[in-house]
């Protein structure tokens, strides 16, 4: 990454979008995450990788406020999430999932308007400011020309962009994305990564996204590796997307199949030479 980009991203920084300290979380008696600590700066895109069932989703759910009984600290924009009301939290953190809702008779615009929930009054009536935010989000996610269509009639790629627009409309400091590209084809995957980068740069939104596809982690500024509910390691894509780390993280066995796979994933970067 060149220095100009770094400097640009550094504007108005210093403020951490999220800081997580000694987080332990799980469901009832079952503990999934132990002793997780990390932080993300404004405008930084962080990818979350690791084997299935090791706690990526649980981490996102905990930050999203869906698992209230956790220990440790989570502060977003310097505020402890426990001290926030549901609405206040929603103004700081928004969410996007890999699966899209079915929304039989919902139009794209209605779904995006849903993102204004924490800003509107008792009956959800939109103010001019809310409408502006909706327009901005529709434009940002490139779904303005399909805004009046019914959600169910869209393609998968379009649906994901709509859910992204909804998350943008919430005007968050931090966006959580749970495998946002899993059901998309390559064209949509790369387009989607472009949308995320654009928002991070223009609005300074911090992104924490879990990813299945290792080659997409390339698009992140930093990578967190989760294994067995703990933070295994973290670093830049250059540092993490290497044969030895990936093999350890995913418990891959030495052999021809593994080599072939890693060559595919790591091709085109310096690390490929090390295989």
């Amino acid at each position, binding site marked *: 990454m060149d220095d100009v980009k770094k400097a640009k991203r550094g504007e108005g920084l210093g403020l951490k979008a999220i800081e997580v300290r000694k987080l332990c979380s799980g469901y009832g008696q079952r503990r999934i995450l132990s002793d997780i600590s990390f932080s993300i700066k404004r405008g930084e895109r962080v990818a979350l990788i690791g084997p299935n069932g090791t706690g990526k989703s649980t981490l996102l759910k905990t930050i*999203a*406020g*869906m698992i209230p009984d956790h220990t440790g600290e989570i502060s977003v924009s310097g505020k402890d999430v426990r001290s926030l009301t549901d609405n206040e939290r929603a103004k700081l953190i928004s969410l996007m*999932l890999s699966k899209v809702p079915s929304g039989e*008779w919902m139009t794209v615009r209605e779904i995006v308007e*849903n993102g204004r929930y924490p800003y509107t009054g008792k009956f*959800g009536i939109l103010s001019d400011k809310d409408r502006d935010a909706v327009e901005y989000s529709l434009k940002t996610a490139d779904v303005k020309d399909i805004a*009046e269509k019914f959600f169910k009639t869209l393609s998968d790629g379009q649906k994901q962009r709509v859910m992204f627009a909804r998350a943008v409309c919430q005007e968050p400091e931090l966006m959580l994305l749970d495998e946002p590209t899993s059901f998309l084809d390559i064209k949509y995957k790369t387009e989607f990564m472009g949308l995320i980068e654009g928002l991070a740069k223009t609005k300074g939104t911090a992104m924490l996204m879990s990813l299945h596809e290792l080659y997409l982690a390339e698009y992140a500024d930093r990578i967190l590796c989760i294994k067995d509910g703990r933070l295994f390691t973290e670093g830049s894509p250059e540092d993490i997307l290497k044969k030895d780390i990936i093999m350890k993280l995913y418990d891959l066995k030495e052999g021809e199949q593994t080599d072939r796979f890693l060559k595919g994933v790591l091709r085109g970067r310096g690390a490929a030479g090390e295989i």
Partner: protein
Amino acid sequence: MTEKERKNRYIFSFVLLALLLGLFGVLNLCMGSVRLSAQDVANALFYCADTPAGDILFRIRMPRLLSAMILGGALSVSGFLLQTFFHNPIAGPFVLGISSGAKLMVAIFMILSLRLGNALNSWTMIAAAFLGAMLAMAFVLAVASYSGRISVLIICGVLTGYFCSALTELFITFADDSDIVNLHGWSQGSFSGINGSNVRVFSIVILFSVSAVFLIAKPMEAFQLGEAYAVSSGVNVKRLRICLILLSGLLSATVAAFAGPVSFVGIAVPQLMRNLFKTEKPIIMIPASFMAGGVFCLFSDLISRVVFAPTELSISVVTSIFGTPVVIWMMLKKQKEVKAWD
């Protein structure tokens, strides 16, 4: 659809519902075992009620008209709440056994109080029905959360309905009081035998409940996108779920207390309204379901009274005949549901 097209569609559909409500209202007042002309009705309404026609109108047809309209509306709003709760359009107070649970409890309370020599008043009937509805709901919810599959939920609800109905019939058969004869019609579902004071009481309860439903329209809309999205946009999901259960229970219990179980209105009407209005927005769907539920029940009650007059069909016979095709059509149409992060 653009915002303008949507608005026009809403206006057109609401006007249509209002016209149908008026039409079936007049037909219900005029038709029956004694046929009244529109002039008789107008006379009695506006000039002099002290005629045989006026007597029929105010003692029999008016309360019955209001019952069908208001209880029908309450029932479909209750259905809409349950569909929102379960994220599934096949849910409704009748298929989930809630109506039958309410019916059973009302029957038990009625028989007991008749044994003790006094009849139940309207408020106690509603309370008994609410208790029965909540017990049935608790059982069905427990099974649903244990299994987590929507098909199991529906089957369990239907079975609960059969079980409660069977118990009700059993109690009625062995209850020897002559007043119990009245219970027979009620336990099959009917808008007959509801008097003016009943109407006053349930109108108050339903007015209160439906107003409360309007107050949760905003979180309901967010909840339609699934639990995770709702939480992330700031909805207190636990509180919303409790509200949905209590309000849908209160609405369907009130209906069951006075009209017994009325089948399929809660599923068929909201579904038809989704297709008419082409929206899911609760702020539109709540009034639309209420009005259309009224229209549907007025229509069904008219048929039940008129077609084989003087014999009366039970209301569920008619609502089932017209409601089940809608439900089957829905099931065929329904795509595989996509569940997000539950």
